């Protein structure tokens, strides 16, 4: 698929930022607000766009891997911010929570600063650990419902 190829070809900084944005899209408001409060020398943040809520048309593929078709829409909230030091950050995620989108944009911008990058990376790790634990639990629960077939062997006498 072209999307995958595009991602593989990304230079490392872009790939890291992309992975950070993936995690921020799934962050809870508590995680984001907590990390923001923990930053003592937070820079001034100016809104560039939003936060705003709109729609993204979600596409599927015919047969799972064929040509694309439109499956239906999903609500998406997004924001773009600029730090006083100039960095631009984008936040976007499913749902209508504009506050989370604004926070995600701020952390995307902070990720690009030398000063605040470690704090953002710590937030990334926090979100990643939670997601991993949730995914692990769900996978284990599903695995417990796997059917173990056994064959009835006819008695040989």
């Amino acid at each position, binding site marked *: *698929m072209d*999307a995958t190829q595009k991602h593989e070809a990304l230079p490392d900084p872009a790939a890291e930022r992309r992975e950070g944005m993936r995690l921020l899209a799934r962050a809870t408001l508590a995680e984001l607000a907590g990390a923001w409060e923990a930053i003592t020398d937070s820079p001034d943040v100016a809104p560039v766009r939003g936060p*705003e809520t*709109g729609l993204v048309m979600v596409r*599927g593929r*015919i047969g*799972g891997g064929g040509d694309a078709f439109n499956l239906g829409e999903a609500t998406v909230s997004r924001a773009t911010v600029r730090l006083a030091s100039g960095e631009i950050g984008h936040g*976007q995620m499913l749902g209508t929570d504009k506050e989370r989108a604004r926070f995600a944009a701020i952390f995307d911008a902070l990720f690009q600063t030398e000063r605040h990058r470690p704090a953002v990376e710590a937030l990334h790790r926090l979100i990643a650990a939670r997601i991993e634990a949730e995914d692990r639990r769900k996978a*284990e629960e599903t*695995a417990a419902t796997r059917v173990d077939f056994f064959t009835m062997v006819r008695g040989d006498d």
Partner: protein
Amino acid sequence: MYVAVKGGEAAIANAHRLLADRRRGDRSLPSITIEQVVEQLGLAVDRVMAEASLYDPALAALAVRQARGDMIEAIFILRAYRTTLPRFGYSEPVDTATMKVERRVSATYKDLPGGQLLGPTFDYTHRLLDPSLIADEAVAEPAAKEPGEHVMRVSDILDGEGLIEGDGRMPEGHVMGDLTREPMEFPMARDLRLQALARGDEGFLLALAYSTQRGYGRTHPFVGEVRIGEVEVELDLPELGFAVSLGLIRVTECQMVNQFKGSAKQPPQFTRGYGLVFGQSERKAMSMSLVDRALRTDEFSEDIVAPAQDQEFVISHADNVQATGFVEHLKLPHYVDFQAELDLVRRMRREYEAARAGGEDGMKEAAE
């Protein structure tokens, strides 16, 4: 002559006030929360999202509550809401092969990579009412086991032998259609039909799917696999030049495997029908895949002999928001129309009576 009629404002206001009261019900009971609807009536929420064609569990739950549990009303409300929002763009196509699978069963292979994963299913329950739910007894935590290997797609197994047609391809140069942007036209291409089916009424598609099984456009189906789980939604950000994840949505996918077709150019192979639906709904995904296959008559040079094969019939009547709008509009004032009909039938009756009085010949004429 046009006669303007006014009135009813006070009655309408009081009717809506009464609706709000009945919706709330007995005030001595706690009000149901959106979170409770999402958590405990999740499949109702899923159906509303699928047929409203808008993925947002919280808003769908609000619609269910606002509609007092009337699903089509809830779907209508959510469908109407989406028209108030701007469109940011189109996502990258979701990749169901990398789904975080919560359920996957195949009726064609017993032992397959990833196994038969039953997940949270109603299958094999006895469908007996459970009084323990009335008492709200404690519910056990789910069992857990070490996860197994990657859940391979069944169509890939058959594809390895070349015994099944590939994932669907549209003709060269085809531009993907979008029902929300262009009016419906027939014949309709498969991508648009799938979009229409994905938001189609579950009951209507179920009935059509059932009709194909009973012989009205038989397709000899097997469930290659049904899988339910979360997939990542990615949106390309032009500002950055790459696609970013927006999070996960839960979908249900059905790969229906149908009896073979071959031609002078192509050896016999299994054909396919495809179903993909927002949320957890394998009844809908299976119905969709059966109807998708039935509608592919032009690709396989099949005669259209049954309703499920007639795309104009199926697609034009699958949308329950449209259907309910047109059926339910009949209860709105038609006073003037009806007055005209009443005048007409009175005149016909007078002529009929006059003719009858005039003798048998005249009566025969009137009957004609």
